[in-house]
Structures are given as C-alpha cells and as structure tokens.
C-alpha cells in the first residue's frame, strides 16, 4: 500500500532538501520526493504547517527490560520514544541479567519486534556482568546483531581492561561507547563538586572524575585504533579533549544530553529534587554553555537522552539514597527545538545530523534520508504547538523528568517507521 505525505516542509541536508514538497512511500521505502506526485491507490496525509525530518534516533536509552520492568519495559519505553518523535533507539545493556551474551541480545530484539513502537538497536556489555574483569562475548553478540559495546552506568575502571576491550572490539569494526567515571575519584559523589556540593552538604562528583577517563580513553583510542564514542560529556574541558582528539584525526565521537545542555547544578535547590540527580551530575552554567557551543560548532556528534526511568517510590526519598537518572525521550526534541532551533543557535540541518545521521553512523546502521530508495523512517514535527511537561502527559512508566513544569514549543505529531505510522496526530498507533 502506498502513503503520500503532502504539504510538509521537508528537511534533509543529506539530500539537499529544504522545501515544502511531497513524499511518496511504498512497501516501507521512499519511492519519490517532489511535487504533484500521484498514486493509484493509498492513503494521503496532509501535513501542512509541519516539518518532516529523517527518522530521529536516540542512541542512549535505558529500556530496563529484562529485570526492571517496574521502571520501564520495551513496550512502554518504545512508546515513549515514538511519542517523543523517535524512530529508533539504542538500548543500554545494564539490565538484569546484563546484556552480555547473544541470548540477551536476541531477547531484546525479539521483544522489540513483538511489542516495540520503534526500532531498537542493542548495545552489548564490554565485560561480563559489567564487572570490568572479563571480556564479554562481543563476537557472538555482534553476530546476533549487537551494534556497539559499552559498560554504561559505571564505565570500565581499569586502563588495562579498557585497552583489552578496545583491542578486542576493533576486529568487529564496532564502536566502543564509554561512560567516563573514575570510581576512585568520584566515590560516593552525589552532585557536582564545588558550589552545589558545598551548598547542599553532599559529597562532590568532580569534573575531573569524568575528564580523567575521557583523557585515558582517548589515549587508548590512539593505542588500539578502536572507534571510541564518549557518552554524555558534561564538562567544558572534557569536550575540549574530544575536540583535540578529532583535530588529531582519531576516531573519537561524543554525545551530550538535553539535561546537561539546558539544566545546571543551580537547579538543585532546597527541595533536593531527586529527578535532578543524574550521572554524570548537572554541572556549572559555564559547562552547559560550552556544551551548547560544541553542539553549534560540530564537536558534539549526537544529542541523546540517557533516558533513565526510575519508579516514583525509588525517587521519592532521600537524595543520597535515590538512584541516578532522569527520563528524556518525550522531551528531547521539544527541548532541542525550544532552546536551540527557535533561538537560532542551530538550524534543522544540524538537528538532523545530531539526532539522526551521526547516531546511525556511530552505531554502524543504515542512515535514513528523505530520498528515493531510503527506508521510510520519518519524524513529523509541529513547531506551532505550545505544551507543558506534566506527569500526566508522559507515556513512560516513570515520571522522573527534570523538566516537569517546563513550557516547551513544538512537538512530534507523527512518526513513521518503515512506512508504518507509530504516532499519528500525537497519538500512539496500536
């Protein structure tokens, strides 16, 4: 069956496309892009006033299944992704059990195929049980479809072990994604070390706890040649190191999250809002500014949410006892639009790079484009909508958003995955 999308402003820098035109889709592929297109039989959608982008990808999410289904599962997490305008996500392996073997990879893929509302790429663990001691069966996982490897959540602590991980992974041509945190330096740190830790009377999580490992992993990238992706960079100096590594020609990429771009340690007030307890922690205004500059100048490759759902009862407690993480899938695109696009800091072409093209390249999966022959993964965005982030408005099982109460501009209204609608007029398609 055919689908004809009409009257939308289509934007795709890969295709040099930035105009109001029509897209004809058949059998899950884009067959024609142009004007006055016709089809014999099919469905027409009038998307006047809206923007169509190549399908957006969030390459860093925690879907929590298997093991933590009270927080989120593959069904609810991918629904949240669709609601937020995403056609694909990459699921982190820190589930229970850890995705550190082919069985786990197959399980996540099978569940996603059965109940998912978007594509789910699977990142496998670098080390067995995320313990940082023994290599995980990366080869077997790769053969079963794992797209990248990471010990996200804590990072590989030993430099020798990380070297082994990167050496071994390099044979598969995959990217090793690094959560940079020196446990010995970070210790029980709760919030950014400095003003916030002093004011709030809690142990500090120093910027250097992250920067040391970024420096180490860049050195190991130089040593092993394995493509390295630095996850959730939060500090100005950390980003500078990535910038320098790129200038040197190393295969180093990086990502930032909306909460590190648009929130700072100052947001954590007297109420000790545990939704703002994230790892790495919210940093200073100067750091956030540097991250925005990195988004603008191209140093940052991807915007990701690190969507980290936790139940209300896990978060509604003492700050020092609450788990780290906030959700983000349903606010990411609107935050990017409100704070970066609507303000003129970046254009839509850069959004497409940050949230579609580069994530797919880093994950070594097919990129999507608004061009004949491409898979019909598309995100439709209405820039005229004003909405408030409320618990009730969220599709995720969890409500630990640091942006509750925020007023945002623009929202995804329709999402197509392989030509099928997963979201239509803001409603999940069943």
């Amino acid at each position, binding site marked *: 069956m055919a689908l004809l999308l009409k009257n939308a402003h289509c934007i795709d820098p890969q295709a040099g496309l930035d105009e109001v035109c029509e897209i004809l889709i058949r059998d899950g592929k884009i067959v024609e892009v142009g004007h006055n297109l016709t089809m014999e039989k099919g469905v027409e959608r009038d998307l006047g006033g809206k923007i169509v982008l190549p399908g957006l990808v969030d390459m860093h999410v925690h879907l929590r299944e298997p093991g933590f289904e009270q927080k989120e599962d593959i069904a609810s997490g991918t629904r949240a992704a669709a609601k937020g305008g995403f056609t694909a996500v990459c699921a982190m392996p820190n589930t229970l059990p850890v995705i550190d073997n082919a069985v786990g990879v197959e399980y996540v893929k099978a569940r996603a195929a059965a109940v998912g509302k978007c594509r789910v790429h699977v990142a496998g663990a670098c080390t067995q049980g995320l313990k940082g001691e023994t290599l995980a069966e990366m080869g077997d996982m790769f053969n079963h479809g794992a797209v990248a490897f990471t010990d996200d959540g804590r990072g590989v602590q030993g430099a020798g072990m990380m070297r082994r991980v990167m050496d071994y992974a390099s044979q598969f041509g995959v990217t090793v994604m690094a959560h940079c945190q020196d446990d010995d330096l970070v210790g029980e740190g709760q919030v950014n*070390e400095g003003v916030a830790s*002093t004011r709030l*009377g*809690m*142990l500090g999580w120093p910027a250097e706890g992250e920067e040391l490992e970024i420096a180490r992993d860049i050195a190991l990238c130089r040593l092993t040649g394995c493509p390295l992706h630095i996850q959730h960079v939060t500090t100005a100096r950390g980003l500078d190191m990535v910038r320098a590594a790129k200038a040197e020609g190393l295969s180093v990429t990086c990502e930032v999250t909306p909460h590190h771009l648009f929130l700072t340690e100052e947001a954590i007030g007297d*109420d000790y809002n545990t939704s703002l307890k994230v790892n790495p922690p919210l940093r200073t205004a100067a750091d956030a500014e540097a991250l925005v500059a990195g988004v603008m100048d191209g140093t940052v490759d991807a915007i990701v949410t690190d969507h980290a759902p936790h139940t209300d009862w896990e978060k509604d407690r003492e*700050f020092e006892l609450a788990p780290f993480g906030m959700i983000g899938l349903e606010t990411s695109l609107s935050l990017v639009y409100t704070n970066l696009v609507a303000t003129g800091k970046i254009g839509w072409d850069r959004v497409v790079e940050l949230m579609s093209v580069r994530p797919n390249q880093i994950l070594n999966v097919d990129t999507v484009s608004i061009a004949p022959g491409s898979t019909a993964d598309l995100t439709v965005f209405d820039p005229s909508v004003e909405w408030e982030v409320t618990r009730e408005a969220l599709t995720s099982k969890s409500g630990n958003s640091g942006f509750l109460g925020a007023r945002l501009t623009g929202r995804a209204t329709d999402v197509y995955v392989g030509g099928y609608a997963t979201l239509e007029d803001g409603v999940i398609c069943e």
Partner: protein
Amino acid sequence: MAFNHKHLIDITEYSADDIMTILETATRFKEVNERRIKQVPTLKGVTIVNMFNEPSTRTRSSFEIAEKRLSANSLNFGGSSTSTVKGESLVDTVETLCSYKVDMIIVRDKHAGVPRKIADVSGVHVIDAGDGKHQHPTQALLDLYSIWERKGKLDGLKVGVVGDIGHSRVCGSLIPALKIMGCEVTVIAPPTLMPARPDVLGADHVTSNLDEALPELDVVYMLRIQRERLEGAPYPSLREYNLLYGLTQKRERLMKPDALICHPGPINRGVELDSYMADHAQRSIILDQVYAGILTRMAALYLLLGGSEDGFAA
C-alpha cells in the same frame, strides 16, 4: 519584633533580627532553668516527635529537656532502629507520624535534605537537628548565644573555625549564621578536610595554617575530628593532626588574651584540644554551650510554635 517562621531548617532563611529574637528569648528562659521546679506550662498539649534516624545522645537529650521544661508531650521515634530497617520509606514513616496528629517533628538524619522533605510531606513544624553533612541550625544558635553572652556582641568578631569543615553539618549552619550576625570568619583545615567552595558557606579567609591565623581570632571554634577509620583518612595520623591543628597549651601564646574556645562536643582530648585548653577557666566556654543548647532550643520551640512575647513565664 515579628518572628515569622514555621520551620528551623535552613539558617540562611533567618535574618539577624530573627536570630537576635531567638537569643533574647533564650536569655529569658534562663530564669526557668534556675527554679527549683524547672518547668512552665507553655507548650502543654503540644506533641513533638523526636525523630532521630541516626545515633545522637547530646542533641536528642538537649531537645528532650527543652521540650519537657516547656511541658510539651514528646515522643522519641528512632527511625533507623524501627521502621526504616523494615524497609519503610521516609515518606511513609512521616505520613504515619502525621496520622498521630503531631505538631512538630524534630529530625536528625544522616542524609542531607531530609528535614525539608519531611516539612513538605508532613505540613507540620520541623526543626533540623542535623541532616547529613548539610546543616545543624540549633547548634549554630547555641554557639552564637554562648559567644554573644560572653562577648556582649557578635558584630565585628573574628571567628576561626578549625577542623573538618568539609564534612561538618555544624559548619553548614554556623558559618552562614556567623556571617548573618556580622562576624568575620576564617576557616582553618588541611585541604583534605576543606569543602570545595568554602566561600559558598561564607568564609572570608581560608587557610591551612593555624599558627598564622590564631593571633587575629576573638573566638576559636574547634571541630570534632572523626577518628573512626584511618584507612583512606584525610590526615596521616591523629598525632600529626594534633601537631598541626590541635589547640594545645603551647599555642596559647599565639592567642589574644581574651580569645574564647568553643567546641560542639564530644571532645577528643589529645586530638583537637588538650585538657589544658578544653578546661581553661577563662577561655573555654564548652560547657556554657551545652547549657545554651537548652536555652536556645526552648526559645526556638517557643517561637516556632507561636508563643507570644510574654506568654512563657507563667
């Protein structure tokens, strides 16, 4: 003077006038504590929960005595030994207490921010009796009272705080409180015991050299050193700590003739203070601080629970 606070959680929410009101009210409670029958009916019928979720003898005893002397009904509720051990959340515990229809919760907890959380959940009056490494406002009030009583003023005094500034809830309230009252504050500690940003607390001067700082000080506030673990400790040995940061007899020559010595207790004799200094008749006001704890806590209870200026002497 209008005293308009529901809680005593964050000392920085109090103005110099608010703090003076508490100190002056505390003075007036001295008379009650010198009677044969040391009790007034001021808070009769008021129910106060002492929720001490981590071990505390001195602070809890001080609050209990203050409550009893004001005729409040008090309930000691040991969170860590009862409900939380059984897996009950803080929020559920507080909601349970609220169902008892209590009027005030006084809370000590090892985690920062808990008193505010309890205030938000419960809606009743809350006093922070120490939360993690964050604040301990009644300790600051009793410290101010003791210094003010002896010096006759607070404004313009030079106060040095020596020891584990970085992990001290006492400092979290004391340093801001001293600043509110117009003192000049020097913090003195090895860098390993200094907070990341002492200026955020209000410290005017930051140094690791006790001998250089001492001659300027009107008040030397010695903090208790935690001596539990040595592995990974922020100082090599108690001996070296005493050598560099202990207020010992041989350092007296560096002090102003009228400089006072404070300590929040309990003292580690031979570590931060030697017995000569701890027991110094002219300088040490450590036991005055303990008594001031009763007076200022009575004053805080009285003012927070809405007592009128003259209502308490009955």
